[in-house]
């Protein structure tokens, strides 16, 4: 069993285009669904607001590691670190790396996330609850509404 995730995806776009989508903070925010406060700078915290429906109250945060133009972009973060009341800073973050390679038809993107070994087990449980929580809450809302209406 592995403690990392790896994804490979072929993108029909020039490497320079993909690089911009990854490292320009506004473009990154478009597809990652986060409204970042400012540009990515190695060694510095990137912060913003999640714009995913249901998580708008959550602050997104990562520490930028490497920016090697058109080759490698990486940051560390706390996946599912979305409980505003919890202090994640004492926990070991995971490392996210985007690697780019030019191909005949465009760009190969290899994404890895590693370091899951260090995530406390109760954090894992929290992630399940969060993932499930959206729907559970919706069902509850419907239930309450129906109860009131009847």
């Amino acid at each position, binding site marked *: *069993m*592995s*403690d990392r*995730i790896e*994804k490979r*995806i072929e*993108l*029909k*776009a020039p490497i320079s*285009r*993909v690089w911009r*989508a*990854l490292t320009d903070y506004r*473009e990154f925010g*478009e*597809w*990652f*669904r986060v409204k970042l406060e400012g540009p990515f700078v190695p060694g510095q915290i990137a912060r913003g607001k999640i714009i995913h429906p249901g998580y708008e109250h959550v602050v997104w945060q990562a520490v930028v590691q490497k920016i090697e133009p058109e080759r490698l972009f990486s940051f560390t973060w706390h*996946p*599912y670190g979305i409980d505003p009341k919890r202090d994640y800073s004492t926990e070991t973050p995971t490392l996210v790396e985007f690697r780019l390679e030019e191909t005949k038809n465009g760009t190969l*993107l290899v*994404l890895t*996330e590693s370091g*899951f*070994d260090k*995530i406390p*087990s109760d954090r*894992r*449980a929290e*992630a*399940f609850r969060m*993932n499930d929580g959206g729907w559970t809450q919706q069902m509850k809302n419907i239930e309450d509404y129906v109860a009131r209406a009847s």
Partner: protein
Amino acid sequence: MFAALGDETRLSLVAKLSGGQPRSIAQLTEGSRLTRQAVTKHLRVLERVALVRSRRSGRENLFEFDPHPLEDARKYLDLVSEQWDQALARLKSFVEG
């Protein structure tokens, strides 16, 4: 937990226990080149990450495998993995569109 399993001896102990039958240290040492002390030490590592539980039975300790932490870890990775699939699909349409 992954680190605890990143050792061949411990992996083989988990394999022996994964049948569900609780086993004593003597049974786990049998047929291996390890000493009882070495097996005990490895079992303690597995116990610390909750993959193995021990209970007293008469004069000896019996060890058994608990798959739940592994299943939870697997499910967690699947969840994070799925989030990445969705994010990368959005990236794809963003740069190709």
